[in-house]
């Protein structure tokens, strides 16, 4: 048996930002598919992170997500991004039903001094794979979305961040007395991403 050596890959700030923004793009698509925000036939299968994931083919949604991920990547490289939240709201009442909260911790030393870190790509992919599996299994405990819903994306940035053209300041779109489930996290040694999903208490659960 050959001896296994732990191979570590060099990770730069730009690479880590690309990994995190790409992850968010796939995670957003997975959430939209699993929560039924868009019809199933509008999604196509792709291979990523060692899994079969679903990506939307709707041009509008696709362009929205690509624009979003590009801006997130910029903010991550600048070390300005603190949190990304994907909000699912009722189309009729605009009531917030779910919040997929991705908390981001950035290594300030890397941003300031440009230090390079080392971590195995396989390890990072494995961590991301675990999160994707958890997102896919969320339908077992999240309440059913019986009404038509829309989604929106909020970005928590530093106070001194300039607001781009396609972005506006907004409220936090909070849920009153939510239930929270903490998912796995992944760490590129430069950016650490924690995932928490909070959802509105189902009336059935309240009655119980």
């Amino acid at each position: 048996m050959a001896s296994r050596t732990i191979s570590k890959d060099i990770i730069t700030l730009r690479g880590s930002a690309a990994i995190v923004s790409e992850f968010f793009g796939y995670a957003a698509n997975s959430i939209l598919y699993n929560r039924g925000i868009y019809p199933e036939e509008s999604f196509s299968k792709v291979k990523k992170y060692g899994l079969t994931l679903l990506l939307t083919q709707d041009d509008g949604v696709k362009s929205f997500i690509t624009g979003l991920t590009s801006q997130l990547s910029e903010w991550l490289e600048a070390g300005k991004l603190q949190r990304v939240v994907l909000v699912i709201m009722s189309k009729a009442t605009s009531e917030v039903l779910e919040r997929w909260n991705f908390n981001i911790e950035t290594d300030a030393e890397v941003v300031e001094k440009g230090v390079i870190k080392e971590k195995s790509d396989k390890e990072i992919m494995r961590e991301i794979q675990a999160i994707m599996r958890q997102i896919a299994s969320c339908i077992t405990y999240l309440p059913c979305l019986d009404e038509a819903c829309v989604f929106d994306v909020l970005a928590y940035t530093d106070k001194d961040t300039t607001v781009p053209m396609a972005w506006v300041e907004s409220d936090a779109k909070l849920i009153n007395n939510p239930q929270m489930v903490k998912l796995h996290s992944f760490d590129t040694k430069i950016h650490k991403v924690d995932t928490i999903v909070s959802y509105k208490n189902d009336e059935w659960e309240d009655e119980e």
Partner: protein
Amino acid sequence: MQFLTPPSRKRRTEADADTSAGTSGAVASPVSDRRIVLYEQHEAVPFQVPRASFGPSDQLVCTYHCRQMVKSEFFVALDKAEKENAEYTARLAALNEQLYKIEEEREKYRDEASFLQQELAASKARENSLQERLLKEVDNSEERYRDQLRRISELEFEIKKEMDSRVAAEQFTETLKETVRELQTKLESLSDSSEREINSLKRELSYVQDESRFSSSKVTAELERTRLRAESAEEEAELLKEQLIGLKEQLDECLTQKGEIEHHPSSSNVSSSNAPSDDDKKMIKLLQEELHNYEKEVQEARKLKSSQLNSELLKEKLLEEQSRRERVELELSKLHEFQVKAQKLELELTSWKSLLNDIPDIVSYSDIPKKFAELQKEALENMAKLGEITAQLKEIKVAMEYADLSKQRAETECMLAKEKVESSSLEVKRLQLMLASVTEERDRLRKDSSASNKDAGPPDDSRVKELEAALNEKEQMMKEMDSSLQEHREIIAHQHAELKLFNDRLTDESKKVKSLERESDRLRHEVALLESKLGHGDYSSSNTKVLRMVNTLAVENEAKQTIEALQAELKRTTERLQAVEELKGQFDAALPEKLVQLKNQIAVLEKREERYKAVFAEKISVFRKACCSLFGYKIVMDDQKRPNGIPVTRFTLQSIYAQSDDEKLDFEYESGSMNIVMNDYTSQTDIAHQIEIFIRKMNSIPAFTANLTVECFNRRTLC
């Protein structure tokens, strides 16, 4: 190894000897005693009792017998003694063997003692090393405990400080949060109210725009109506002019006919025609005068119309200005409301400012988020410190566990040393017992040997002395070992006491560690609560802002456009409001006077109009009557509109010589052309024939009407 000595026999012989020596009248034979009894004693003993019974001859025989007996007994005793001596020598040999064995055993015991001594020395050394180790460990543990106690006390003090500061900060943050929440709710309410007001203003704008459009459409419609009326009035005037011209021409023709008629029957009817010609002239003059008057009246009517138009325009202007004034008044009322709201907001701001003044280290509203951020930073720093404290607690736990382990090792080693010491003490005791037994045997042997070896000689005294010396030395060594053992025991007792003290300290520190663990659990719970709050989405507005991407998928763009349009309309309305306010400022002083003047003018013009109307109605009625009497037709004029919107004037003529009301002629005047309208009367053959001839062929309506009047007159007169 124990050697058995027959003490019972000796004891028995001694006991027997003692009893035989002790008894005075014993009859026991000296032979059985196996003891050489002196003659004198022997004589004394037996002869004491039966002295009285024996005589002097008997005494001699007795003495021989006694001597014989004594000899025999002596020999027997000698034999016995020799046997005993042999036995004693054998015993001595045995004892010597035993002594050799004992010596060997002693040597063995010496070796063992030396071994034990070595072991004792080693155990001593180990104990010393253990003691040193224990002392070192105890010193180290003491130092560690002291340090830990110091750290714990310092940490407790810091924890208390931080907890106090944290409680205060939490209370302060809670109060600030509450105030911020209230401010946010108020801001939201204010923003909602402002949005509602904006929406209401927008609605009002739309209403105003609709009203303005409606009013403008009304005005345009009215303008068109007035234009049409003016046009129709002009057309009527033109018609009247044409009619006048026609009448004039008719008059001229009549006059010419009269003149011609007058020329022919002039001779016969000169006198009779002068009067009627004069009357006609007078009539004509009157008619001309009336025509002039009517022309004047028409001009006056035109002037009236123009004045009426002006008055109507003025009325419209008045209405507009009234509407503007109403709007301005409404907006003034709204301004009053806004002023009231602004006053309320100012009061609220003053209250918030007073709150700000109450809050320490805050000068302005913008300082609140900074203070909040500072407090949050302090809370985060406290959390970090708590994390460090927990890490230190863990280190302390690890050190405590290590100390426990070392303590357990020391205890086990102490136990082992104790066990060794006990075993060595047991062995020492055993040796002592052995020595005691050996000394006892030695003493007995000495006694026996001294009693028996007086004859055998002292061959083993030196050896015994040596043995005794060795034994003494051994005893001294054993004493020394006992003393050292006692010292070791004292040291071990002292160490036990110290261990107990350390155990007590350990229990105290374990209690402290447990309390610290509880605090750490509580802090972890608080950390979990804070994490849940973070997961909920709470954030600090001083460090963070929330951005949302404009959703190109939805109606946001349209909403933006509508919002921009509404904002532009708002700007325009505000500009209009400002202009209206400026106008109002200008007109405030001049409006009422102008209104009064205009009202007076309107009243005057209305009076004039009424007078003109009355005069015109009189004149028109006179004109109609004259036309009726002159031309023989009652004319009724009616303005109508066709479905296509073209105005048409309908004239209904009824001859004064008509025999029934159905005999009416209908004409329509349209764009300068007069056309007859067929009805039941005109569809009769006679009338239709006349229409065909005069109107269709000759294109002369007056000829038709004249012909018809003549026929009607003839019918009337003839009938």
